[in-house]
């Protein structure tokens, strides 16, 4: 078994795709004609978005993500060499700033924003291997 997809349930798939393109520079690789599901071009492990209403179709119940409430206890993390500029781009595209880029004792630069649905997104530098 391998990790194939990270699927985030969202209020509006098209808006979320557009946001991730703007804020994090991703590209969309597939949108289902129903508009209820889309995949981003993220290599072998796919970041995908599904509409909240698809949860019920799949027989699952979820606590919907919300911009104002407490975020769910998990995150996606994008890795880049230039955390400061990626963070600035995300925030200028409408991401909610949480913690600005800071260097951790282990040498990694880390920042956090919340996306348009309130989901936690980390923007960090690669961990350097000694």
């Amino acid at each position, binding site marked *: 078994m391998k990790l194939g997809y990270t699927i985030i*349930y969202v209020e509006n798939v098209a808006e979320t795709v557009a946001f991730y393109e703007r804020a994090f520079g991703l590209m969309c690789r597939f949108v289902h004609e129903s508009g209820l599901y889309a995949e981003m071009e993220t290599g072998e492990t796919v970041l995908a978005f599904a509409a*909240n*209403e698809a*949860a*019920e*179709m799949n*027989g*699952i*119940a*979820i*606590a*919907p993500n*919300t911009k*104002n*409430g407490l975020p769910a206890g998990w995150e996606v993390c994008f890795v880049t060499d230039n955390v400061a500029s990626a963070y600035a781009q995300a925030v200028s595209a409408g991401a909610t700033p949480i913690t600005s880029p800071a260097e951790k004792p282990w040498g990694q630069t880390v920042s956090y924003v919340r996306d348009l649905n309130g989901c936690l997104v980390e923007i960090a530098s690669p961990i350097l291997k000694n």
Partner: protein
Amino acid sequence: MQIPIGYKEHIPTPQSTRSIERVWYFSAPDAGSSIILPDGRSDLIVRFKVDEDGLVCSVIPIVTSPATKPFNVCYVPGDIWIGLRLRPELSGIVWQGQVSTVNEAYRGESAVNLVPMLSKIYVENCSVSKLTQIMTGMAEQLGAISIPAIALNALKLCHVSGGRLKVEELARYLSCSPRHLHRVFKSAVGLPPKSYAAIIQFHRALNLMSVDGLSASEVALEAGYSDQSHMVRSFQVFGGFPPSRIPKNISFPELPH
């Protein structure tokens, strides 16, 4: 669990634009009875028979109010129903603000008095397909009525969460007070949000048990009941049976989204 023979349904249009959740059709092959589980929605129904020439006769219009209890329907061969299961937010309009009316069915003249457009079903020499057309045409008119966004969004949240969000949590999601939510929701749906959510929760639990084959304790946990006895009470109220004895002849409206 089985759907009675002769029962079928279809989804007419995409969710965002439809006023009808399902158009259903039931033609009784034999004498029998079915338990209809509550789904919190109103139906516009026509019950009829077909004469030797294939024309519709003995037409009875029926309007049901949001159901919160199971009920039993008896039928004999030759009985046919065409029903429009309306979106939940349309009950308030159909029942004209008689929001505390639940588990009611108006038949014949009183149904037409409540929903005057039902008079359109009285047509001379009407075929079954013509009658179906008339029924679906009526529901499209209902779709044009605008519903408060808070009620619509609260309904979505009830479905997405499997009925597990409490009224206070729903209100927080919608940035309004629980009291306001309760009032707006009840006037659109005809039921308080708590009752509607409990119906969704029950259907999900029933599905998990009868379709997915989970054990009672697994279902209670996943469906969000505080304990198994809480779940048993819910099954008794909405189904009239305990989880350990799910009857075979219940009609199981697929609760869509």
